[in-house]
């Protein structure tokens, strides 16, 4: 329909090759979109389907003999809620801290006449391109005696060099004249940063905050390495352990007399529950991340 409409407007007929390209594009991109969405739909369906339907493999993209027992089991019988709390706290606190540190670092380094600028930038570049390694980093964290604390979960992303450079480059691109007129009015560096530079940089700051939040929320490796107790488990560690320790799940199912709950159902339910925050924030994420790409492609 759309194609025909356009033809009329232009008054030129589409050549065959154009039609073919257009049709292929519609079909191929539609299929790709389905490839991205259907697996998610499948997991959601599984988490609400009866145990027999899940184990017999008859669940496709819609719940079969719907039930809520699996969800109830995950919420009540597993440490899911505790893991969720840990992830929310680490992501929330971590993102705020990281943003403050990132802005505080990017601002001085964005000033061309800042004394010592080259030295500090060099320190950041050096530590970005040369990594001490997993083992030495672990030894530092152990020496600090912060294993199994929130601090150890925040430390690795305290400031992500790449994010800092994105913010710094953006600050550098802001017109100097605005800042200069505020300075003549007697505003301090801090005041200029808070009431002029930051408000002018809202889009890039929102994007970088998003990048930090995704980092904290999704991180598995550091969370696994730096926590030992179940109490400090983050969501990712909890999900990984759930998928890989099905034996304990079986035992608990038998003891708890959950007849309509299956292992694969539990795994699906755990995945689905942890997707909720991401899906809930998706419109927001989408707006700023796509914006961020444009910033990234212009500024690098």
């Amino acid at each position, binding site marked *: 329909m759309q194609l025909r409409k356009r033809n009329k407007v232009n008054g030129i007929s589409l050549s065959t090759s154009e039609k073919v390209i257009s049709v292929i594009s519609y079909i191929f991109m539609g299929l790709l979109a389905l490839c991205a969405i259907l697996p998610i739909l499948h*997991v959601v369906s599984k988490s609400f389907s009866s145990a027999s339907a899940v184990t017999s493999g008859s669940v496709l993209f819609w719940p079969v003999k719907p039930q809520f027992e699996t969800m109830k089991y995950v919420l009540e019988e597993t440490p899911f809620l505790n893991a969720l709390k840990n992830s929310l706290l680490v992501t929330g606190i971590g993102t705020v801290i990281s943003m403050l540190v990132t802005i505080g670092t990017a601002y001085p380094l964005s000033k061309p006449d800042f004394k010592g600028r080259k030295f*500090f930038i060099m320190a950041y570049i050096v530590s970005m391109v040369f990594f*001490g390694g997993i*083992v030495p980093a*672990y030894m530092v964290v152990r020496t600090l005696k912060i294993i199994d604390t929130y601090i150890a979960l925040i430390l690795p992303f305290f400031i992500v060099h790449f994010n800092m450079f994105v913010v710094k480059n953006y600050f550098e691109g802001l017109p100097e004249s605005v800042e200069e007129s505020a300075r003549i009015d007697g505003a301090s560096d801090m005041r200029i940063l808070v009431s002029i530079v930051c408000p002018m940089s809202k889009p890039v700051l929102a994007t970088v905050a998003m990048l930090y939040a*995704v980092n904290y929320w999704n991180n598995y490796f550091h969370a696994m390495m730096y926590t030992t107790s179940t109490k400090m488990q983050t969501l990712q560690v909890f999900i990984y352990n759930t998928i890989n320790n099905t034996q304990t799940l079986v035992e608990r199912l038998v003891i708890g007399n959950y007849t309509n709950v299956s292992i694969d159902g539990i795994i699906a339910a755990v995945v689905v529950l942890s997707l909720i925050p991401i899906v809930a924030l998706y419109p927001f994420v989408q707006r700023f991340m796509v914006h961020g790409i444009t910033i990234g492609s212009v500024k*690098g």
Partner: protein
Amino acid sequence: MKNITARLRPGIKPRKPYGLLAYLRDHYLLYLMLIPGLFFLIVYKFLPLYGITIAFKDYSIFAGSNPIDAIAKSPWVGFKHFDRLFSSSQFVKVLLNTLIINGYKILFLFPIPIICAIMLNEIRNVAYRKLAQTAIYVPYFFSWVIVFGIFYSLLGTYGIVNSALAALGQERISFFSDTNVFRGLLVFTEGWKEIGWNTVIYLAAITAIDPTLYEAARVDGAGKLRQIWNITLPGLAPTIVLMLILKVGYILETGFEQILVFYNATVYDVADVIQTYVYRMGLGQADFSLGTALGLFNSVVAFILIVGANTVCKKLLHRSIW
């Protein structure tokens, strides 16, 4: 007023000499702001650099009052652990696995987002395009653990794919433990997670192309394929080159968390990469010195690759990665 002009034009020095002390007095806040970040650099980035000496020592974690103190108290052994590392067959294996897996990923996955972006751009129905675009990059925001959970649901022994195979009278495939398909699984899941996002990156670059170029081409009678070949692709070239350079530059870094989550002992032969081996040896089996030695090897090669990538980037595209 002179001062302002000087600031606006960095080339011209202000007339009144502005000493370091006066500058520090006026702008001490700027230095205070830097402290938290520098604290992090020293603790989490530079202190581990000192920890690299673990590779040249017989490190015992209990030799000192704490793990860092223990480094100083452990005896030097020179290149002993490097000899051990380079003479082991494991080293060659993980090095090859790293190159093969990432090579496959670049070979099979790199061109797809470019094609997708061009196709997406050909879709005239705005609602359809927006919907497709929004859908394809949803997986980008999932962690590797979530992706693992989803694919476990699809490809596990009793997953949807194996159920279908069984229904068709075929043998079930153990995607997570069959050494013949595991690398394919890594490449496929990487594609599932990343293609959509990379497509959006290329799409952003396409939108930046001057539309009058297409206008002119149309007037000259150029067909769609011609336009794609002569306008879209050249317009995308800098982005393509940049992405490829970044991919190659970070070849040792990427894929670590994915493999750590997906693999298990049955597929170590085909999936164990440098970083996973460092982790398993260095922390899992407490062979700290060997883990540090391999980690150092990894860091040095990564350093050369990244600095090399940046040099190429500067030469070709006149921009720096950082």
